């Protein structure tokens, strides 16, 4: 009966207006041509009214509190110190600068986390499919444990484990030292973080990082100009090697023979870099104990290390399931058919399995990168100075500018995630199966 009525309505709305030319008010509701417009007009009014309501509330509240909306606070001196700064910063610099330092820290931990999570995820995803019972059970336990327990708890626990289990810098001191450095005295793993050697240049072009030297050694510095030269050398090498590949491909097509080129590639890619390093006087500077702490070398703070580890282990568990699902999604027949064509097993993987599995794997993989980047805001549990801690934490707290601060913070994350989802969409579009 309902259907009959609906049918009648459909007919009324499509046929009758064509008979009668005049416009009736009822058409706004009944006529599909007008109804969509009238619904949208109503929606537009509702949306405008709610925005006006919110806006007037904000204005009223700000007035009641005697505040205004003003971004000038970003120029005021911050007054607080940040331990990890990728660009020069001290507490006399502005809140804006502190926010940028925080943004860079967020990007750093997200970037490192994505790389490690991918490695862990692929490894565990493959191990989950292993025939070995112990290994695939262990991989399953890892995946379930990290997926079922809140990330916050993992971050806090890993931070606590690192604090409790690792030796203190003072344990390395003296003749009765209870701890020692690893890898030929070059890496110090302490409860404050990990100290690893750095590369410095004795003929540095812009020596701005010279650290007080160890006894009997000269101070060595490294600068951005030196690294720019190294990177440029590698880039040129890559371009040339692409040219070699194109040449070899052409030759193979013409003659059917593929010339052996690995020594050309080695000469182009590795030799210039070695020469550049030698000319700049590259030396490895090891961290050493001085005063209360290790000094020199690169210091990876525990907050960064714990957050990075927790984020990558947590996200790795999700990626492992995606990888497993992706590999399983490729039908057995594909592998068998490829083998029947006479392809070798590595070529099967490269040409048949991976391209199909990656189509399934990559979109959710990138959206996991996105959630990793967003989850990095849990940095406040370990005191890592990310953008939430600087702009969205101390700055808001010291200046009382919560409206402006939260707005900027939200915009930053929104921009980041739109960027990443833009990449997913681009990928999806390029890899879309051509359907009917």
């Amino acid at each position, binding site marked *: 009966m*309902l*259907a*009959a*009525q*609906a*049918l009648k*309505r*459909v007919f009324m709305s499509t046929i009758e207006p064509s008979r009668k030319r005049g416009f009736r008010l009822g058409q706004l*509701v*009944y006529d599909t041509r007008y*109804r*969509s417009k009238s*619904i*949208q007009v109503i*929606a*537009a009014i509702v949306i405008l009214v709610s925005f006006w309501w919110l806006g007037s*509330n*904000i204005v*009223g*509240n*700000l*007035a*009641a509190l005697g505040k205004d909306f003003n971004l000038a606070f970003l120029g005021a001196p911050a007054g607080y110190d940040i331990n990890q700064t990728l660009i020069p910063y001290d507490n006399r610099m502005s809140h804006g600068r502190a926010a940028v330092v925080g943004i860079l820290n967020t990007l750093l931990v997200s970037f490192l986390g994505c790389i490690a999570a991918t490695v862990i995820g692929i490894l565990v995803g493959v191990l989950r499919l292993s*025939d*070995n*019972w*112990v*290994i695939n059970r*262990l991989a399953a336990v890892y995946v*379930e*444990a990290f*997926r*079922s*327990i*809140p*990330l*916050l*708890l993992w971050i*806090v*626990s890993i931070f*606590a484990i690192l604090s409790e289990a690792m030796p203190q810098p003072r344990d390395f001191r003296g003749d009765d030292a209870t701890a020692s450095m690893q890898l030929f005295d070059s890496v110090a793993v302490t409860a404050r973080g990990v100290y690893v050697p750095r590369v410095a240049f004795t003929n540095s072009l812009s020596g701005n990082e010279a650290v007080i030297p160890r006894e009997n050694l000269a101070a060595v510095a490294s600068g951005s100009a030196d690294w720019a030269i190294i990177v440029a050398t590698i880039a040129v090498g890559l371009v040339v090697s692409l040219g070699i590949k194109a040449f070899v491909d052409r030759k193979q097509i013409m003659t059917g023979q593929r010339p052996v080129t690995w020594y050309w590639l080695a000469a182009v890619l590795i030799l210039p870099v070695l020469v550049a390093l030698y000319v700049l006087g590259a030396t490895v500077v090891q961290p050493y104990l001085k005063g209360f702490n290790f000094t020199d070398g690169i210091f990876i703070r525990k907050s960064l290390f714990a957050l990075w580890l927790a984020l990558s282990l947590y996200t790795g568990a999700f990626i492992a399931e995606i990888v497993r699902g992706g590999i399983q999604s490729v039908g057995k027949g594909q592998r068998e058919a490829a083998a029947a064509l006479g392809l070798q097993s590595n070529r099967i993987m490269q040409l048949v399995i991976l391209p199909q599995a990656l189509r399934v794997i990559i979109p959710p993989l990138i959206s996991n990168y996105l959630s990793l980047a*967003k*989850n990095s*805001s*849990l940095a*406040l549990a370990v005191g890592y100075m990310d953008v*939430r801690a600087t702009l*969205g934490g101390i700055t*808001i707290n010291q200046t009382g500018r*919560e*409206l402006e601060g*939260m707005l900027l*913070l*939200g915009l930053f*994350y*929104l921009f*980041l*995630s*739109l960027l990443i*989802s833009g990449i997913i969409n681009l990928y999806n579009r390029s890899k879309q199966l051509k359907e009917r």
Partner: protein
Amino acid sequence: MPGNQLSQAFVRTGMLDAKQPPAGETGLILWIRKNLLSSWLNIILTVLVAYAALRLALGLWPWFSNSVWQASSLADCRTILAEQGLGPTDGACFAVVTDRWHQLIFGFYPTDLYWRPILAMILFLGGIAPILFFSLPRSLLIFSCLAPFVCFWLLWGGTAWLPLLIVAGLAGGYALTRFVGAVISPTLTGLVTLALLIGFFWFGLMPLVGLMEAGLSLSIRPVASREFGGFMLAATIGLSAIVLSLPLGVLLALARQSDLPLIKWSAIIFIEVVRGVPLIVWLFTAQLLLNYFLPPGTSFDLTLRVIIMVTLFAAAYIAEVIRGGLVALPKGQHEGAVSLGLSYWQSRRLIILPQALKISIPGIVNEFIGLFKDTTLVVFIGLLDPIGVTRAIRATPEWNGVYWELFIFVGLLFYVVCYAMARYSLHLENLLRRDNY
């Protein structure tokens, strides 16, 4: 036919029992050979992994086996350990859990009223059973609709007239759209009903509740949301958010699929903005900014603000899950509905949504697992969720310095709940796969 009889005597009437396979090809040995020692690489891996796992277990075992379960403070614990000749860190002090478990579970909910959240939980589980298990009769769904209201009343207490009148209002609205809408235009009736309901809830509800309460008191002791804490708080926030976000998510998903550009783009912008910003930032927004958006001088309960924020957050994610379900439906279903002459809302209500929602349930359960884990973030805005309670416990002089025991307890509880739900969702996925193909 004697020959026949004779030959029949030599014909077997039954099959021979299968022979036992050789000893090496059966049972435990085969299993071990196949699963642990199939190649040299596997042998090495097995040994290494087993050794590492054993080392870890043996290293941690004494700490667990020496646990102290009864003590009134950490100092007390250490004394008991010292009496056994053990150092202060040689044994766990699970006494903190036995001493404070009620705070970890119920927060500061009045001790004599613990039955209320427990009953609410049971009712809630009973309520969602018909949704989760398809074999139960569909008529039980009415119970599913009522359970949240009863739970609300049980948890917060106060007068029962409030949930009763809300249910009455909603039922009245439903009847109006269902029966009057069938005769007059459903769109028009829908809009009028919505306006009527908003008017009723905004202006009429509280006075009416007061009036009814004065006539016949149906009050139980009210409990402020401030007293919620521990797992109960996590469950309350997570469950209310998921229940409230479902209808909103359905609307958003439909809006995103809509042909009307304004509706479609509003939905896309809402969903992307909400999903683009971390929950913690939204929680800080609830804590710091929500009052800026409300009329000056209005303020309400932080727990409620958090529930609203988490609901909006969850709605955006649920909308994407349901959109997945909508997209997954074969196009023929839409076309069939249209060819039957069903209106937009009729086809959605009768054809599209029941199927789309059913295949979305695993995704919704997964979203809920994520949401439930994410409720731990409310600790950063001063609510005492399980992690917040551990902090509060550690701040007392008696238990200052304890943390592993509390983390293990909290982690274990989360693990049990989330793992169970994940298993269920997996089971459901398999069931649905079989249903469809």
